[in-house]
């Protein structure tokens, strides 16, 4: 466990000392700020964070892979993975450590966006329910997206490949709930249930449904499991 902590701590330090993370942070805030202010220009604006949440889920499809692409792809590229994997560290400790680091940076980004909520509470009286639920949903959504990105970073030594593949998977998952319309039947229903966006909608409306929480937690567990297995498989190639 201490080694997982050490891995996480090292990655966190790299996040906060590298320009990539700050660029990601800048773009996240700039774009979500745009979505947040979008409806405020209406004659009778609603005191809601719904547009912000909507924007954040889209922006994060692009930014989560940018945050995770380095995590293992770079170790493979530089060869530092050789020392990592010959140290007495378990594979899950490596994966969990790396994942936690990306999660911490993501949570800092989310915390920065509290600014929007504070603005709403200062200048209006929004319904706190959807804001609280929305943030819970956003954290779950982001956690899932980061787990996807971590898996693709584990599979390649090329950061670009990792990012592009992760974006592809996330986009597919994002729009999966639309599959029901075009495919139909049981298959369409199953694919639709796999959709990221579909499970986020309830949170945005202020509904905290266990089903949706279980969904996101399962996605995280599934992709972390695959990441650990992929790392393990390096020992057999």
């Amino acid at each position, binding site marked *: 466990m201490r080694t997982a902590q050490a891995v996480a701590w090292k990655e966190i330090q790299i996040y906060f000392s590298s320009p990539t993370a700050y660029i990601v942070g800048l773009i996240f805030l700039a774009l979500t700020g745009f979505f947040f202010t979008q409806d405020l220009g209406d004659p009778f604006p609603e005191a809601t964070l719904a547009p912000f949440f909507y924007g954040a889920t889209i922006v994060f499809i692009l930014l989560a892979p940018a945050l995770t692409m380095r995590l293992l792809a770079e170790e493979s590229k*530089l060869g530092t993975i050789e*020392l990592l994997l010959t140290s007495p560290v378990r594979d899950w400790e490596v994966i969990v450590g790396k994942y936690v680091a990306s999660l911490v940076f993501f949570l800092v980004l989310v915390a920065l966006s509290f600014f929007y909520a504070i603005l709403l509470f200062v200048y209006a009286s929004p319904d706190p329910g959807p804001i609280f639920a929305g943030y819970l949903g956003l954290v779950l959504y982001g956690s899932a997206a980061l787990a996807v990105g971590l898996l693709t970073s584990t599979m390649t030594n090329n950061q670009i490949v990792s990012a592009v593949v992760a974006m592809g998977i996330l986009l597919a998952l994002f729009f999966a709930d639309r599959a029901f319309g075009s495919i139909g039947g049981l298959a369409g229903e199953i694919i639709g249930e796999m959709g990221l966006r579909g499970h986020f909608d309830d949170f945005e409306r202020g509904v905290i449904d266990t089903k949706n929480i279980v969904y996101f937690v399962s996605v995280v567990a599934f992709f972390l499991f695959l990441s650990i297995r992929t790392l393990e498989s390096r020992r057999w190639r």
Partner: protein
Amino acid sequence: MGPTTGKNLQPDMIQAKGLTHYYGPYPAIQDVSFGVRKGEILGFLGPNGAGKTTTMRIITGFVPPTHGSVTLDGYDVVEQSLEARRRVGYLPETVPLYTDMSVTNYLKYMGTLRGMSPKAIKTRIGDVVDVCRLGDYSKTQIGKLSKGFRQRVGIAQAIIHEPQVLVLDEPTIGIDPIQVVETRRLIQELGRDQTVVLSSHILPEVSMICDRVLIINEGRIVAEDTPKNLAEGLQGVDRLEVEVGGPVAQVLPILKGIAGVNDVAHVNNNGRHTYTIQAEAGKDLRNEISRAVISNGWSLQGLQLVGMSLEEIFLRLTTHEEL
């Protein structure tokens, strides 16, 4: 078989049996077996692509062998991987380092990964920095260090947890001569208490540092002995150097005609004619040669036995199928 019983059966710190590794259809190493005793420095010698790195990666548990097994201190590197890995310090050939970390932070990180307590790391870092002469650079970012210093950082991370087994892949490659000498001295010092396995394609280096040499070529072990014995064991093929004052065209056939001479090579050094004679195994032909030269009326200006250098043995071992 538990680790304790394994220990009793195998006095060797490293025990490799029948290691074979395939990259796709191509075997990188085939049926490599060896043992390394505690406190011994074993050198892997061989040309590039001989399978040295693959063998080291198997010992350290980075890649599993396709066939065969390795135990470290009785622990199987595949089956009891964690226990085996706890006992190893490893310096890969490319010296992979996190370039954006400072030397101290990097060593702390590697120490933690190797399961050291923060307190142990704190006391140990000073020693390691001293031993590897990194004193003035301990706060420097690794990316700003020269190749030689990176090599020292690489060695420092390999020894920080005082591993029982130290695996060094080409530890002196690409650094300047003064640093090479220092690195060799350092390895010899480490080899007093630890078991060291190192690879090299530089013969003098291996014969200087190692207690035992394992020559590997095209994935197979072609010779294994102490550097001294390797040189002696091959002195069956004797070589003489003769300097003769006389017409080359006549001297050559006469020398070649002496019973027991396999081959004669002639070198003209500004009018001084030196002939290198390959004699049959174990034959001392000095009497016959001097008699032949003098009876023909030429002058014998020099005659000496020349032993084979390890370098020649190496070439012989790795370029000929026999021996």
